[in-house]
C-alpha cells in the first residue's frame, strides 16, 4: 500500500495579512529562530515565462516586473535559483544574489521593469533543472516560484575548426 506523504507546515509561518491562495504552494524558508524553528512564507508555484539552458560560466538574466506605490526608496532585490522539494524551496547559495536598487517616488501606482544578472560559476557542477524566484526584501514582496525554468548543463566536449596549419619535413 502506498501512502502519500503529507507535510503540515506551521501556519504561523505566514506573515500577517498574507493569505494562502488555492493552488500549489511552496514554503520559502526565511529565518531560523533560537528554538530551531524555520519561519518562512508560502508563495504560489507558477509556470515559468520561458525556459533556457545555460552552461557554467554563462550569466542568467532575470527580467522582472512589479508595481510600486510610495515615496522614493532604496531597496534590496533578491534573486535565487534552487530546487523545491516537498514544497520547500532550497536556495542554491552559488546561484543567489542580492542587488541594491532605488525607486523614485510614485504618487500613483507605477509598473517597474528591471533586470538582474546571476553568473553561473565556471566551477559549477550541480547540473540539471533549477527553479527560481525573486523578491524585494523589505517590505517583503515575492514573485511566484517558477519550476524547472533554467537547465544548467555541462559543456560537452566539442572539437571544431579542425585544420592542418603546416606540412613539414622532419
Amino acid at each position: 500500500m502506498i501512502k502519500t506523504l503529507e507535510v503540515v507546515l506551521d501556519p504561523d509561518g505566514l506573515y500577517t495579512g498574507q493569505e494562502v491562495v488555492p493552488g500549489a504552494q511552496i514554503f520559502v524558508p526565511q529565518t531560523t529562530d533560537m528554538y530551531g524553528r524555520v519561519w518562512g512564507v508560502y508563495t504560489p508555484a507558477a509556470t515559468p515565462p520561458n525556459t533556457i539552458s545555460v552552461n557554467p560560466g554563462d550569466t542568467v538574466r532575470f527580467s522582472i516586473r512589479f508595481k510600486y506605490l510610495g515615496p522614493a526608496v532604496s531597496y534590496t532585490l533578491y534573486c535565487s535559483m534552487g530546487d523545491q522539494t516537498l514544497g520547500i524551496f532550497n536556495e542554491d547559495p552559488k546561484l543567489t544574489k542580492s542587488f541594491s536598487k532605488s525607486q523614485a517616488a510614485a504618487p500613483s501606482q507605477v509598473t517597474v521593469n528591471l533586470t538582474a544578472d546571476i553568473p553561473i560559476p565556471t566551477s559549477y557542477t550541480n547540473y540539471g533543472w533549477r527553479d527560481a524566484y525573486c523578491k524585494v526584501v523589505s517590505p517583503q514582496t515575492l514573485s511566484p516560484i517558477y519550476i524547472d525554468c533554467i537547465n544548467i548543463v555541462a559543456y560537452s566536449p566539442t572539437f571544431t575548426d579542425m585544420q592542418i596549419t603546416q606540412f613539414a619535413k622532419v
Partner: protein
Amino acid sequence: MNITFGGILYDPTTGVNTQLAGASLPVQVDPSHRCYSMVELYFNLGGSPIALYAAVWYLRPDGTSGPSVGEYLLSNDYLICYNYDFTMVGLWKVEASLGSSFMESWNVFNVTNPPGTFSDMKVTSFAKV
C-alpha cells in the same frame, strides 16, 4: 493620533491675544492614506456647530510656509492635506478663523510618509547573456 491644538484667538479689533485654554482642536493625521494626509479638525468652541475657515500649512525645513490647503467648513468637519509628491513631510501649521478672529498654531502635527508598497512581482523572462 490626536493632538490638542493649543491655539490663540486673536481679536484684531482689540488687538488682544487670548489663549484658548478651554477650547481644543484635536488633529488627526490618518497614516493609512497612501498619497495624502487627512487632517480632521474638530472645533469644540461650545454651542451649535459654526461655520469657520480652516487652513493647514506646510512648514518648510527652513521655517517658511509651504503649500497650504484651506476651506470653509463646519466644526467637527475635516480637511484633507494632499501630499501627492511625498515631499511635504514634517511639521504642519493649523490656522482657523471665525469672523475677524483667528487662531493658529505651528508645529501642530507631523506628517510622515507611509512605506512604499511593492506588488504583483513576477519574472517576465529568463535569458542567457
